[in-house]
């Protein structure tokens, strides 16, 4: 009987992004007084033996990054897939627990679930996005065999890691911590995220459905357990679940039987109604 030895897993925190939308370096944004990069490295280090930080060649001298073992992009191209490929090139015998540095809600629970669900025979093991059902490449385990596949992908002029995963054999996991992979790209999202507690708590909300929403969800009302903290988040979640055809922009929302802004902070027990375009008279 053959005993297969799985490639040992190292950690790779991606900090090579250009932070274009944030307009400042995302790696150094503070949450609870510590930078995103420090928090991400510490989190990953609780789960694997060695953690490296992935950077572009131009970032090697940056002090926030330089205190960690670095893997500098070594293959041509751009984006996170180049960072992942460079890590496999630097340590060909290892699999990589890859984590973007801009996931302020990422939890130990999520990483434990990912590691427990690892399929070493797949190209990668990844979570399914709660927003669109597609694989999440930037909190995933990438196996050594991905190297040749990434090379072929890059050669075809492609560099989107999500598309890569969609086209290769990937073990997909439904995240138990549904908010863990929400990332933060803009100053507005940062303000919102840094104001929230970093541990998400699920709460129960009562949803009533009318007219088209009732027909598309197949129900008049339900109680949902959700991590959504605003009606906007809740609609995104339920739109993904039920395939609502109306974009949020065409709807209004009511909380506890009164019109409410989409950014309203929801509380446990709130009653929410999504209001499609009205047509009385």
């Amino acid at each position, binding site marked *: 009987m053959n005993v297969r030895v799985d490639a040992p897993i190292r950690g790779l925190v991606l900090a090579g992004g250009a932070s274009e939308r944030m307009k400042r370096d995302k790696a150094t944004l503070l949450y609870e007084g510590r930078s995103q990069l420090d928090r991400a490295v510490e989190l990953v280090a609780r789960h694997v033996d060695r953690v490296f930080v992935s950077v572009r060649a131009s970032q090697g001298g940056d002090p926030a990054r330089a205190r960690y073992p670095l893997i500098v992009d070594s293959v041509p191209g751009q984006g996170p897939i180049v960072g992942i490929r460079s890590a496999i090139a630097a340590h060909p015998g290892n699999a990589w627990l890859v984590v973007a540095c801009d996931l302020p809600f990422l939890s130990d629970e999520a990483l434990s679930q990912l590691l427990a669900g690892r399929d070493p025979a797949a190209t990668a093991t990844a979570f399914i996005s709660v927003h669109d059902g597609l694989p999440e490449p930037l909190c995933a385990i990438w196996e050594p065999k991905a190297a040749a596949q990434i090379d072929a992908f890059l050669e075809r002029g492609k560099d989107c890691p999500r598309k890569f995963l969609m086209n290769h054999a990937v073990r997909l996991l439904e995240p138990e911590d549904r908010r863990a992979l929400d990332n933060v790209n803009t100053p507005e999202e940062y303000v919102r995220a840094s104001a929230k507690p970093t541990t998400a708590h699920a709460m129960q909300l009562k949803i*009533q459905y*009318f*007219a*088209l929403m*009732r*027909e598309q969800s197949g129900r008049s009302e339900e109680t949902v357990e959700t991590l959504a903290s605003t009606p906007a988040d809740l609609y995104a979640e339920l739109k993904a679940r039920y395939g609502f*055809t*109306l*974009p949020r*922009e*065409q709807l*209004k929302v*009511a909380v506890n*039987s*009164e*019109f409410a802004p989409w950014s309203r902070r929801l509380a446990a027990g709130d009653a929410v*109604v999504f*209001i*499609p*375009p*009205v*047509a*009385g*008279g």
Partner: protein
Amino acid sequence: MRFRFTDLRIDTAAARRELVDPGAGGYASFEGWVRDFNEGQEVTSLEYEAFQELALKEGERILAEAAARFPIKHALCIHRVGRLGLTDMAVWVGVSSAHRGEAFDACRFIIDEVKHRVPIWKKEHYRSGDSGWVNCERCAATPGHRHAQGHDHAQAHDHAQAHDHAEAHDHAKAHDHDAA
């Protein structure tokens, strides 16, 4: 000032009696009826559905706004819910006032605001066997699409007036699929 729903035929004589007032020299009413065509489709029946808890509040707000804008004595609006056939009355608005002008104006104001703001939905059933939620389904396929003609079964309405008041109610604006 009263806004209400009913799943029975609207009793206009009884409704009108609620508006009687010794100081009223005029009364105007509006009835919206189910029409047999909309947007090139032959309509055979309608279903109205309302989020009543909020609809009643929003309806009362509209009546209060009408009373604040126009010197009227009484106003009442009754809207049907459930399934309606052709020629059935879907909505009734009545206003009494000292003089005829404000009765007409307030009546027009109320029906326009109700159509734009109150969470009531209308499903049309067509001769073809098809059906659809008005303002929701065909529009959803083409975001940003605005109709040249209203979906209105009850009347042609004046958008300048509806919009003018809709300022404070972002709701009315967002839901307005009719062309200005």
